[in-house]
């Protein structure tokens, strides 16, 4: 048995080395930076807790946090509804289902940067086919992009969850006279809880860290109405050139995300156990 443990550890070693070197070490470096005033060149000076206390005075950060939370709720709800709807639509084998699945999934094959550039043209006044103007609904265009790009991916994950539910469970319910809605709420949803939780966790985390879509499509405007948390981190690091402050905000965000995710997992485990 000991030998088997050693073998297992050996197989995990490449991943462990990469994670340690390219994730844990940079993370520690970020934490270390957050304790300092960290000039681009020259030697850092300890300035604890200035980088953290400044967070409270950062008005932009407050509005960005509020926006990011709203954005996360909007995206999570819409994306989940759309993806689940698509999954239900294509769950059964019937004619044309392969084509539909491919059509919904194909946007996933466009890289996110390329997809953002695509929408930059698609939604532009100059060449786009849609009646949008430069001052059009900035948040709306981002939501559209994210729905288009990610609905298919989430559909596929939800689809695998749907298909794992044994058919005879539904049969038994039908014999008992359950309606379609009852079956959905009493059978489908509870049995899919792990899959749903996985999809929701990914949506929430992804939205809280959203950056690329705003960076390319809206630049955070108009009037800072689409400035996300990570955009503020970017501004601290690369516009204000204050790496210590950027690191401080990152650490706080990271801790919040870790707490959120572990709560989600704890909740899940209890419910599904």
């Amino acid at each position, binding site marked *: 048995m000991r030998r*088997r*443990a*050693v*073998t*297992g550890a*050996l*197989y*995990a*070693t*490449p*991943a462990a080395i*990469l*994670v340690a070197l*390219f*994730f844990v*070490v*940079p*993370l520690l*470096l970020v934490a270390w*930076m957050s304790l300092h005033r960290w000039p681009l060149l020259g030697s850092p000076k300890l300035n604890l807790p200035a980088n953290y206390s400044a967070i409270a005075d950062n008005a932009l950060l407050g509005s960005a946090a509020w926006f990011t939370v709203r954005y996360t709720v909007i995206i999570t709800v819409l994306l989940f509804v759309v993806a689940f709807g698509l999954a239900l*639509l*294509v769950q059964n084998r019937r004619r044309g289902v392969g*084509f*539909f*699945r491919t*059509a*919904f*999934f*194909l*946007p996933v*094959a*466009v*890289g996110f*940067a390329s997809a953002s*550039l*695509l929408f*930059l*043209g698609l939604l*532009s006044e*100059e*060449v786009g086919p849609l009646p949008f103007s430069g001052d059009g609904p900035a948040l709306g265009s981002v939501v559209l992009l994210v729905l*288009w790009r990610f609905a*298919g991916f989430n559909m*596929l*994950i939800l689809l*695998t969850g749907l*298909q*794992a539910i044994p058919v005879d469970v539904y049969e038994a319910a039908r014999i008992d006279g359950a309606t379609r809605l009852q079956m959905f709420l009493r059978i489908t949803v509870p049995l899919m809880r*792990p899959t749903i939780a*996985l999809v929701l966790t990914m949506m929430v985390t992804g939205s809280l*860290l959203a950056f*690329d879509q705003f960076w390319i499509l809206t630049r955070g405007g108009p009037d800072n109405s689409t400035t996300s948390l*990570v955009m503020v*981190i970017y501004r601290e*690091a*690369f516009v204000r050139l204050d*790496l210590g402050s950027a690191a401080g905000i*990152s650490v706080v965000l990271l801790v919040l995300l*870790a707490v959120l995710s572990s709560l989600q997992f704890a909740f899940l485990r209890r419910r*599904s156990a």
Partner: protein
Amino acid sequence: MSRWSYYVTGTALAILFLFPLLWSGWASVRTDSGFGAENYARLFTSSNGIRPVHVFNSVVVSALTVGGTLVVATFAGYAFGRFRFPGRDVLFLLTLAILMVPYATILIALYVLLGWLGLEDSLVGLSLVLIVFQLPFSVFMMRNSFEAVPIELEESARVDGCTSFGTLVRIMLPAVRPGLVTVGLFAFLTSWSEFFAPLILLNSTGKFTAILAVVNMRTASHGSIDYAALEAGVVFMAVPCLVLFAFLQRSYVRGFTSGALKG
């Protein structure tokens, strides 16, 4: 759902989802005088357009990333799915936690690190970083794929005298093939089209990947965007991925079924 409403809804949604792709294809060949390849010509010949070396670099980075991700994620997935060893759960959670880090923050730290390793401004260094960012999805996928393989299959191999490595290569790999295809496919997609990491980690024009040139098209002349050439760039970047995804559809759907099932 009735047959009729199934087809109407499905078709309407399919048109909506395909529309942006079709539009970008159309916009990329539309010219002042009708249709033609002029936008593509501009994409490849303008002073800051895509050069053959950029495409070559993208191919190298993609190959390294796909290969590296497959090897590391397969070993790790096998370890997590079939072995018990100290630190297993911590390492697994740590791997998933990579998803929780704001990319913009640790890029500088990663850049510093690559410098220490003598890998700054190198395609290998960039690929290593991309592999790490592929790990959460890939390791999760491979662990579940390995868990889904019936334990009897592995045990019969061991009875036949196979080493654990022999079992992995000869018995397990064929069984987790859909998972491997899925992991490889997504590694390719990310490495081929990732923009921010190469921007920060590469310094010389000769090392640039193709996406950097495409984004350069966006901002080449301050005050106007060459949308047509930009869409040509988008199409150029998207086509290899679209072709692969269309061809390998059966595999990755099965990959998801066996891999992503368990939370």
